[in-house]
């Protein structure tokens, strides 16, 4: 059985909530089960095959979405297995509460991508909005597992309240990256907005340059060698997630420890060559 390609019939209409349109539905119930799903668009629910054309295509078990614009919200929400590819842009909540499988977005995605993520892989070729890997709206648990790579930029509050897992943003991130972080790792390839790690308890934020401003509760631990960076580099290079602007060798970094005002012993590591 091949995969299925869903091409949106009316890209100009209101956003579609794609929650529940997952590759595991295809694997479990086949094409018919998938076509009978009832996503929400506008004020009502509609059969999936009324909103999209369904064609065979792609590797077995793979669901391919062709959205024609950022009109698909909740793509991959709660996904547990399989492959979901978006050949275009995503709206908000891409990969939110994701537990497993792989979600690939060829374009940009909106706010709350990977929010509340527990496991799996999210790879975004373009930019990501605010609250990447943060808690879902109203929630208190940020990303607690999984692997997120954004090849472009990301907005504010990346990894807010993050508990585990890894987020690698190759481009810029906005303010309050890793705010109230509890554990996990955030890697930022380009510039970082003000106040990374505000009120963080533990966890690591890796930067290639000084952030715009550091929260007052951070203390400068100075330069040193951090062996785990070598392990991290190998892992991220294998996953295609090591930012191109990062040193290709060496484990030296300046470490800022904080946020001490919250009793935290997290770290902002500013990498250097050599």
């Amino acid at each position, binding site marked *: 059985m091949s995969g299925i390609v869903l091409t949106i019939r009316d890209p100009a209409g209101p956003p579609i909530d794609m929650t529940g349109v997952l590759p595991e539905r295809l694997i479990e119930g086949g094409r018919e089960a998938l076509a009978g799903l009832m996503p929400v668009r506008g004020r009502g629910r509609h059969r999936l095959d009324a909103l999209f054309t369904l064609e065979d295509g792609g590797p077995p078990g793979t669901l391919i979405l062709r959205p024609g614009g950022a009109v698909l919200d909740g793509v991959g929400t709660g996904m547990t297995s399989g492959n979901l590819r978006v050949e275009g842009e995503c709206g908000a909540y891409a990969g939110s509460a994701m537990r497993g499988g792989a979600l690939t977005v060829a374009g940009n995605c909106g706010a709350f991508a990977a929010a509340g993520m527990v496991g799996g892989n999210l790879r975004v070729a373009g930019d990501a909005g605010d609250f990447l890997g943060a808690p879902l709206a109203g929630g208190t648990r940020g990303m607690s597992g999984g692997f997120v790579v954004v090849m472009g930029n990301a907005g504010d509050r990346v990894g807010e309240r993050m508990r585990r897992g890894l987020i690698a943003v190759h481009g810029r991130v906005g303010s309050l990256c890793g705010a109230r972080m509890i554990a996990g*790792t955030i890697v930022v390839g380009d510039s970082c907005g003000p106040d990374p790690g505000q009120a963080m308890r533990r966890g*690591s934020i890796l930067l290639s340059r000084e952030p715009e401003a550091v929260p007052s509760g951070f203390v400068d631990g100075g330069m*040193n*060698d*951090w*062996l*785990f960076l070598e*392990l991290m580099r*190998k*892992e991220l290079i294998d996953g295609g997630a090591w930012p191109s602007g990062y040193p290709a060798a060496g484990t030296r970094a300046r470490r800022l420890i904080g946020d001490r005002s919250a009793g935290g012993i997290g770290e902002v590591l500013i990498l250097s060559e050599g």
Partner: protein
Amino acid sequence: MRLNGVHIEDTFAEAFPMLGTRLVITADTPAWVQAAVVSMTGFATSVIACGCEAAMERALPPGETPDSRPGAAVLLFAMSKAELAKQVARRVGQCVMTCPGTACYAGLRDGPTIPLGNALRYFGDGWQIAKRVGIRRYWRIPVMDGEFLCEAATGTVDGVGGGNFIILAADRRSGLAAAQAAVLAIREVPGAILPFPGGVVRSGSKIGGKYKGMIASTNTAFCPTLRAAVPASLVPEGVESILELVIDGVSEAAVAATMRAGIAAVADLGAAGGVVSVTAGNYGGKLGRYQFRLHEVMA
């Protein structure tokens, strides 16, 4: 069986189940790796009194270590999971963490785990940091030269301890040369170690003794100086020196391969090299689960 004039006795080595683990230790230079390994595997020759048996399995080039630095694989064996966990925590804590620049990683991923960094993290006094990289979890413990990086746990394997063979030589010099040749050959075989000093035992033991409380005493049957005095002596005429190689391995196959490599190296020296015969230590097959018949091993 005769190999190059060396008599290979038709007997067997009796070995026992042991629980083992492999650790990978790295440091800035091979010399510091060696310093950590020598310290960590010190006083680890026999479970009779040391708690565990341990030795370096092989040196690892930077390309084979997790952090791309020089390293070494070390194997440790004990009689129970609890004892192995205790020995690993003590030895890594006192001998590896204390050694400048070192890091310690799990060398086995499968099998039941025992704590590694999980047992040592408290040394960080609250400043230790857990870091997950991929599927592996590490502890970063602040120390005076920076940070001690240690994997959280390591896997264990049902290994085999007490594989052995005994070299009977015309004199001490030729016996030592044969033993050293065997050690060099064995160190090329993965998955097994020789826990005794230099890989060789000169004080092989038998179970019990004449004195109360002795669980082991000198192997009188193999003491050349007692040949005339001990009725059950196994020392033939013309033999002045006997040395034993004791082998622990991660599997029966690893121990057999190691014995084969060692005995072959001894046989290469031949009778001309002063080697008279090769035999093995056993307890009549009553105690150990594993039996390595020398003729089968060398077939």
